[in-house]
């Protein structure tokens, strides 16, 4: 029965997952395969345009390949895409089924609503984990093809918080779709809220000290982690645990809502 439910959840999300996988491969591979070309462009810019006001990370990214990957993948561009993908994987659920007229069929099955939610969440988490592995493989393989030294543990130690942070957004998305009806409105709200979060946290990501009220929202900073991460102890485990707790809270709220809703 659980296998059948998981299979159902997979069928519902597989197109999104496959597109997400292709995006992950494309973006991660791009930054590895195009690194030399980007670096050459930057060197040209330094010579031809000395007036350009280069950001603080720029010079280091030019000479330090793992830092280049850190900036573009874990801290900036790919992180935002990652969060979007996590949100999109979480959209769906019984509210959506109700809109499509299949909720009656699903709810008439001899299974609890909790189980329905749990299997959907489980499949989404597995997909997010798969994307994490895909990202690591893309970066490592791309680096190897370009003969650029990239330590795997650097990737592992950065992708772990990325995965944990992604879980929070995934859980928030799973929760949101239990509250908001409609096909597209949950997507607008979810992605819009993510955008506002990044907007609000941008100064802290850029280096400003974290205000006390911003701590619960410091997920982007947490997902990026410190640039120089070499050991397991360098990972902000406290923050990771807090992320997982946040994901658990969203999940609990979503379950409660689903169990109390009329369909």
């Amino acid at each position, binding site marked *: 029965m659980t296998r059948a439910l998981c299979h159902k959840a997979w069928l519902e999300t597989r*197109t*999104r997952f496959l597109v997400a996988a292709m995006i992950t491969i494309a973006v991660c591979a791009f930054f590895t395969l195009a690194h030399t070309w980007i670096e050459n462009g930057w060197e040209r810019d330094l010579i031809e345009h000395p007036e350009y006001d280069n950001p603080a990370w720029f010079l280091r990214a030019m000479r330090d390949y793992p830092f280049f990957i850190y900036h573009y993948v874990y801290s900036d561009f790919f992180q935002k*895409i990652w969060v*979007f993908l996590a949100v999109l994987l979480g959209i769906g659920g019984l509210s959506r089924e109700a809109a499509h007229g299949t909720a009656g069929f699903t709810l008439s099955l001899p299974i609890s609503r909790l189980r329905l939610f749990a299997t959907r969440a489980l499949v989404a988490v597995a997909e997010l984990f798969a994307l994490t592995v895909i990202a690591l493989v893309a970066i490592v393989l791309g680096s190897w093809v370009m003969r650029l030294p990239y330590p795997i543990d650097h990737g592992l130690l950065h992708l772990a918080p990325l995965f944990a942070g992604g879980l929070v957004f995934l859980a928030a998305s799973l929760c949101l779709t239990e509250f908001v009806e409609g*096909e597209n409105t949950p997507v*607008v709200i979810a992605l*819009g809220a993510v*955008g506002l979060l990044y*907007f609000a946290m941008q*100064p802290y990501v850029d280096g400003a000290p974290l205000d006390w009220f911003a701590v619960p929202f410091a997920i982007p900073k947490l997902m990026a982690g410190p640039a120089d991460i070499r050991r397991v102890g360098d990972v902000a485990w406290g923050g990771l645990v807090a992320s997982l707790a946040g994901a658990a809270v969203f999940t609990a709220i979503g379950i409660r809502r689903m169990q109390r809703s009329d369909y």
Partner: protein
Amino acid sequence: MSKDTTMLMRKAWLESKARFTAAAIILTLLGISTVLRAPATIAGWERVHRGEQMSYPLYIWLSLPHGFLQFLWIIAAVILGLGGLLREDAAGSSGFSLGLPVSRRRHVLARAAIGAAEAIALGFIPLLLVLILSPLVHRSYPLSQALTFATMFVLAGLVFYAFSFFLSHILQGEYAAPTVGLAAIAAFYIFTKLPRFAFLNVFDAMDGKKVLVGYTFYLGSDFPIVPIVASLGIAAVLILLSINRVNARDF
């Protein structure tokens, strides 16, 4: 305008108003927080970049047209482009729509018009809020600048709306269109960073990067006409392709 055209547009509005309202709220929050955070953000920046000053127009430009407004508006435009006869077919109501004495072209055009109007309205919200709220932080922002930035922004950016609109006529899955649309736009963003393809950079046309006056970060008399016309032209082609696609399809 004939009564049936009015009704088609009303239908399109009713179909999309929840999304539009959600996006409008988010962009309103963006506009308000941009203004209210200005003093702290500018002060923080100046502390880090000792000896340099950040002007208010620069801050607004970095936060909105060149910053998160571009990011959030493009997401909103993509979501507004979703829907249409393919989704109605999946939902089971396409029979009703197609049973009306109206060409498929009119169905598509009515929805395109309403969605574009909504996208345009959304683009103006944050910049008009900057105009209205700047006195709260003892700053001012010229009306002409707010209107010009907003106009340039939405006209150049309508191509993203049209792209999503087109995708919603070729991809039937519920989340296929937004996923593919947002992914493609992200890929396009990277692509246009390549010098060889910089001429395709719609994002620069949206924020007026190439026509800002010196260090004022205001717009001058130059207007990026060519990229905007190109963007609108491509948007028009995408809408026409959507019409063709719907006309050719069996329901």
